[in-house]
């Protein structure tokens, strides 16, 4: 029962972050400070009054700030049953107490809860001074607060990014993203275009615009991987009213650009075709996604592919 998870599979990504937080958060960050504490000279009747008023199910017992035991409602019931409610709390409390240190990570407390089945763990410093108390509820609250902070931080980043062009005033503001693409690096093929797409979404581009840019840059990226001598560069310049994407390489150049733009024409090798490339649709796809496509190519200087998507004023 205690190991049961109350998370659906669709929030599995969150569970992973929750688990991460168990390692990131320290016990000091989630515990309750200055908990209700019983002193050694109190009677069980005093304890009953205090605990009953506070609606809690147990409390630590301390002498001069030092933790010496824990009194639970079970202990109170035992003293009532024995008719010895005027005895000192020290007679009925548990002396052997499981504790955690404030500097420990939350995961240590979770292990302790699983191992001992106790409901609360006193938190002590290096001198065994009581500084707080920790329940599973404290951990849940601490983790939820941390998740909330994560979310707010991400929203802030998104907000800042999407207001970049309003916040920074110049005659012409633009953001330039550059990526180096290696020849034959099929393993990372699509990584740059995925990053560009995510950056555009953060900047506030519509999903339609981000998708079109992603597809156009992907085709350009794969062209650099498949068809160049030494790979090349991708450069994306984002402005408020347009996105300019460029791919550069230093060869071998395209001998007949019109032929290269023909649907179905490809110079890809059999090996590359087996990987799913070489449909001869790359430039055709790009042309369908962008408002303007210009190819300049020569055997001496290599190829420069220039793609522009114009945006409505509201788009970025």
């Amino acid at each position, binding site marked *: 029962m205690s190991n049961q998870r109350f998370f659906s599979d669709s929030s599995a*990504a969150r569970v992973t972050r929750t688990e991460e937080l168990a390692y990131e958060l320290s016990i000091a960050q989630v515990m309750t400070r200055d908990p209700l504490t019983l002193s050694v000279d109190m009677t069980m009747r005093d304890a009953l009054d205090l605990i009953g008023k506070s609606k809690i199910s147990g409390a630590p017992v301390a002498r001069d700030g030092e933790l010496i035991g824990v009194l639970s409602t079970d202990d109170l019931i035992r003293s009532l049953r024995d008719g010895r409610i005027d005895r000192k709390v020290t007679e009925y409390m548990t002396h052997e107490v499981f504790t955690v240190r404030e500097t420990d990570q939350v995961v240590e407390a979770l292990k302790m809860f699983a191992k001992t089945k106790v409901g609360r763990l006193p938190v002590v410093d290096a001198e065994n001074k009581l500084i707080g108390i920790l329940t599973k509820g404290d951990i849940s609250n601490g983790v939820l607060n941390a998740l909330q902070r994560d979310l707010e931080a991400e929203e802030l980043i998104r907000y800042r990014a999407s207001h970049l062009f309003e916040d920074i005033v110049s005659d012409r503001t633009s953001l330039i993203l550059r990526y180096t693409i290696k020849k034959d690096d099929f393993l990372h093929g699509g990584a740059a275009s995925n990053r560009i797409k995510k950056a555009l979404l953060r900047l506030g581009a519509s999903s339609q615009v981000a998708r079109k840019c992603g597809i156009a840059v992907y085709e350009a990226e794969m062209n650099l991987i498949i068809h160049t001598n030494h790979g090349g560069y991708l450069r994306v310049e984002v402005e408020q009213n347009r996105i300019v994407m460029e791919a550069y390489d230093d060869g071998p150049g395209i001998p007949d650009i019109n032929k290269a733009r023909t649907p179905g024409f490809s110079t890809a090798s059999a090996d590359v075709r087996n990987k*799913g490339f070489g*449909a001869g649709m790359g430039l055709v796809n790009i042309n369908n996604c962008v408002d303007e496509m210009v190819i300049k190519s020569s055997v001496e200087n290599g190829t420069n592919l220039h793609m522009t998507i114009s945006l409505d004023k509201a788009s970025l």
Partner: protein
Amino acid sequence: MNLQTIIEKLNLTLLTEERDFSSIQIESGYQSDLLSCVMTGAQPQSIWITLIANINIVAVASLLEISAIIITENAQPNQETISRANMEEIVLLSTSASNFQVAGQLWDLGIKDH
């Protein structure tokens, strides 16, 4: 149609991590073994049928927000491809059936949008 139903009806083998597939809705499908065609043709939240099993299918699916890929004729992706798919939350499924058979089965299940 949810992905759980598709996996059961087509008897597909799961290659990536277990998830709550009943919450993943598949509205449309696409079949091609040419990545550039998929780029133009496949819709977001769709299922893609292909014989290609290399890592590039994950990049394409991620870019297009394709939910799941059915890899046909028992073609086996390597571990790196599977790990990348897990990272990008793309579901990889395997079958011995052909592209043609799988497309037919999905059509019979009522997935007719593309």
